[in-house]
């Protein structure tokens, strides 16, 4: 019970604090929605590895991995909404970022994370067609996930935006720690992806 509450707090507090940002009063709805889609995506990245490893007490690994798929779809949706909201707000700034010519240093990391999300979604959709066996799937998915997590954190931490800075750092550290611990646990300690 405490674990669930803890996970919920780590995810919810940064989002709530961002909703209290004074700068939101100066933004249009598309910018606010796009920004929050990104914030929610970051928060979801905390739950994702925990679900993949079945750390949350109660439901069991199979069920948590089912939720991992749903949360994954939610992350994809949030990332698409993030880019779409930004594009509506300023097409020129968004295209600059997507074409890797933005003046801001954090944009390239956002595009890297976006590429990883797109690749992951494609792999999930085409997994059967590719005939990938489980060990190969795991390796690629874990690798891309690690890249997405690091790129997302580097992206978020450099942005001056709606997120309150301390909670952003806290969530970022939590996301990195959860990803790191789960990757080591599943790939080194258990070595079988946790299915045994």
């Amino acid at each position: 019970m405490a674990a669930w509450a803890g996970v919920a707090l780590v995810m919810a507090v940064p989002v709530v604090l961002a909703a209290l940002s004074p700068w939101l009063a100066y933004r249009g709805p598309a910018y606010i929605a796009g920004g929050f889609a990104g914030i929610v995506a970051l928060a979801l990245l905390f739950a994702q590895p925990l679900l993949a490893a079945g750390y949350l007490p109660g439901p069991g690994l199979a069920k948590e991995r089912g939720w991992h798929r749903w949360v994954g779809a939610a992350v994809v949706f949030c990332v698409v909404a993030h880019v779409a909201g930004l594009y509506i707000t300023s097409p020129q700034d968004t295209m600059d970022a997507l074409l890797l010519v933005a003046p801001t240093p954090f944009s390239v990391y956002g595009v890297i994370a976006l590429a990883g999300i797109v690749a992951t979604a494609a792999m999930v959709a085409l997994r059967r067609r590719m005939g990938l066996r489980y060990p190969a799937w795991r390796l690629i998915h874990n690798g891309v996930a690690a890249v997405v997590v690091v790129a997302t954190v580097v992206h978020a931490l450099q942005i001056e935006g709606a997120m309150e800075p301390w909670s952003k750092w806290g969530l970022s550290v939590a996301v990195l720690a959860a990803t790191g611990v789960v990757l080591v646990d599943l790939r080194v300690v258990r070595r079988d992806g946790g299915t045994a």
Partner: protein
Amino acid sequence: MNLPFYNRRSFLMAAGLAGAALAQPPLARFAFAQSSGLQPTRTMRGGANNYRPNAPLVDRLGSGFWVSGTVRRAGDGAPLSGVRIQIWAATTLGGEREPKNHGSVLTAADGSFRLETEQIVPNFGQPHAHLAYDDADFETVFLRPVMGSPRDTSVSADFVLLPA
């Protein structure tokens, strides 16, 4: 024996013609720029984003924040007066596409300009302003200075303009 179609004379002719061609505009710009004297400022990345040409001349766009700078001529560095500088930014009045956030000013006799606005707020992750020279007498330049902190109450950018 077979002489190649190229020789010293034809090489020197070609090099001379190429040099003369490169010295013409627009490449002459680079030759001018490398000569001694003040270098022209180059357009900054993203500087032209959300530009709305012909921002109205205004006394002020708000209060509490100052956008300022100087305008000088490339080469001799002479201050340029009566030059129109267009300015826009995301402020507490709204985003960069809000018309109330677009205005232009003319430089004073000493080449300086300043415009008071509402507080600039971060936009797309950075607190910054946009400034532009986009008229006939000099080459167009877009600047996008970034503020050190969102709590700053001023930002400045200096133009060095190349005669058109």
